[in-house]
């Protein structure tokens, strides 16, 4: 039956999209690690792969949107699903932009603060991973979404704490001039923004999942 075939195709596209976002967040984390360790070839390789994945995620998101409208599928939740995909796509988009800035601006991160950036990238990844899992749950088990949302909020809070600690430390560091301090702060915020995007998606998911429950 074509109805079931169409929905199977879209299900697969949505799964692929979420895989792409998850994998993109992983590449983002590893690329930041590689940059901090000075492995620039590895960093560039991961950045390029992330850019490809971001393009793929965009394409999948458009395909799903087009199918949902042309086939008039899930009329009750179409807006929510498209909003979810669009905002989840922003996570990988933000990660890509962040890595491109690293590539272009090549910030000089003193060894004393590298651990903070490392922790920040890992926690932002954890938030993104949790929100992708929550998004998967939304499609199959809306009641189970809240378990993951709790994790997203936790990791985003951790990111805020690390970011604040980092900014305080940078601006208190007498060895850094103002321009350097501002440059480092800018990158702390850029990495933190990935977690902020994850939290924005989580906030939407909380409402969508309530609407999805019968």
């Amino acid at each position, binding site marked *: *039956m074509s*109805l*079931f075939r*169409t*929905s*199977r195709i*879209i*299900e697969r596209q*949505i799964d692929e999209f979420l895989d792409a976002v998850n994998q993109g967040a992983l590449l983002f984390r590893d690329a930041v690690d590689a940059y901090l360790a000075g492995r620039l070839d590895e960093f560039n390789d991961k950045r390029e792969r992330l850019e490809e994945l971001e393009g793929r995620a965009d394409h999948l998101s458009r395909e799903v949107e087009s199918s949902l409208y042309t086939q*008039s*599928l*899930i*009329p*009750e*939740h179409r807006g929510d*699903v498209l909003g979810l995909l669009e905002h989840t796509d922003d996570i990988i988009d933000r990660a890509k932009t962040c890595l491109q800035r690293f590539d272009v601006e090549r910030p000089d991160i003193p060894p004393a603060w590298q651990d903070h950036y490392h922790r920040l990238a890992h926690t932002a990844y954890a938030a993104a991973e949790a929100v992708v899992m929550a998004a998967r749950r*939304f*499609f*199959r*088990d809306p*009641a189970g979404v809240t378990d993951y949302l709790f994790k997203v909020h936790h990791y985003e809070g951790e990111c805020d704490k690390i970011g604040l600690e980092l900014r305080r430390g940078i601006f208190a560091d007498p060895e850094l001039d103002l321009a350097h301090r501002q440059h480092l702060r800018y990158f702390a915020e850029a990495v933190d923004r990935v977690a902020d995007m994850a939290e924005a998606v989580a906030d939407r998911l909380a409402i969508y999942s309530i609407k*999805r429950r*019968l």
Partner: protein
Amino acid sequence: MTLGVLFFLSSGLFLGWSLGANDAANVFGTAVGSRMVRFGTAALICSVFVIVGAVLGGSGAAHTLGRLGSVNALAGAFTVALSAALSTFAMTRAGLPVSTSQAIVGAIIGWNLYAGMITDTGALTSIVLSWVLCPLLAGVAAVVIFLLLKATLGRAHIHLLRQDALVRAGLILVGAFGAYSLGANNIANVMGVFLPDNPFPDRELLGMSVTGVQQLFMLGGVAIAVGVMTYSGKVMRTVGGGIMRLSPEAALVVVMAQALVLFVFASEELEAWLLGHGLPSIPLVPVSSSQAVIGAIVGLGLLRGGRMIRLRPLGSIGLGWLATPAAAGVTAFVLLFVVDNVFDQTVARTVHFRVDEAVTARMEDEGVPASTLADLLGTETTNGLSLQKTLERDHALARHVARRVVGLAEVAPIHVDLVRINRDLDPDWLGVDQMRAVRSLAGLRFDHTWQLYDALAQASPLWRLREDIPLNRLWNKEVRQKREFLVRTFRDESQP
């Protein structure tokens, strides 16, 4: 079939068209309104299954309507159906959730009053009871189905897209079932009044025997289908997007509950099963699909705490129970007068009532002394209602006893003709013993139907009614149907 007959059927076909235009929205409205199912798909499925339901399952509810009043002239049936259609139209314009079931009942009672026939209070009571029962049952069914669906979906963890596809498929399947139930239950409204004067003879079609009733119901089903195809789209979109703003899953529950209730009130098979297991049966009565839908939605509303329930539709249902039959009854009475006196058409075949010795003797057996009815002996009238009133007023008989006398006094000249026995009776349907009993009466004449029934009961125990308990109801129903068939077959039309 002449053009004249087709003209007389036209009011029923109009009623069928309006039923299709309005009630199909109860089956597919939410699905089409929420764009889960395309109108073309909905209209096609609805049309096919309405016709199937009407032809295969329509006789149960029609039988109950027939008990209420047997409109015995084609012009009368035309007027009754027209009155129902007109009052349905007027009430719809007034914004009430109108029911063709209630309109036709009112119109039949209007005919009974005009023709001086007695309304069977037993049939009327079960019909009115079913109107109240219908939305209640739909509400309960909706709650049960909703809880089951919620529990299933909660455990199954089906993907949103897969669930959407399943709900669509479910809406189509349940819609088909709903259309079948609508056809089976509501065809009695459209064509029931034409049954006593059915112009279609039984015939063979592609090696299958198709009864006149089935042909009549198929014609009505086609009229409903035309209503669905031509006009229901607009109503469906209004219903789907307007008063019934439901999620597709809730829409599925509502349609399922409504279809189940209509099926329960139409299915002879279910009735047979219930009776066969000694369970109380539900009367087979045409009920309102609109009111079933409202009942189902209110049920879901109560389940969610009752905040969404608006009292206005509930009040409208109650008002509909009274206003619709009353409006249809008055319209029928007035129109029958016009058709009878202005257009000079026979709207009711004259039924004669004669209190003869057989009647008084039979009443004596039932505990009414012959002396009570002595001064009425030989009385003949064509107005059963006035005879009943005379018996109540002048002879101090209780209403049910007076009705019994009128029933016994109804004259129905019967001649058990051997040629007809051989030609018209189906030995497979009657069975050897019942057939033998009928043959033993060959050549006899009776003035009243009950005399034939008595003679049959004497000739074979298989023609006897059994004690009125649930277990025997199926048997009694079958015996009654066979006896009525014999009366129609052996009716001596040469005598008044």
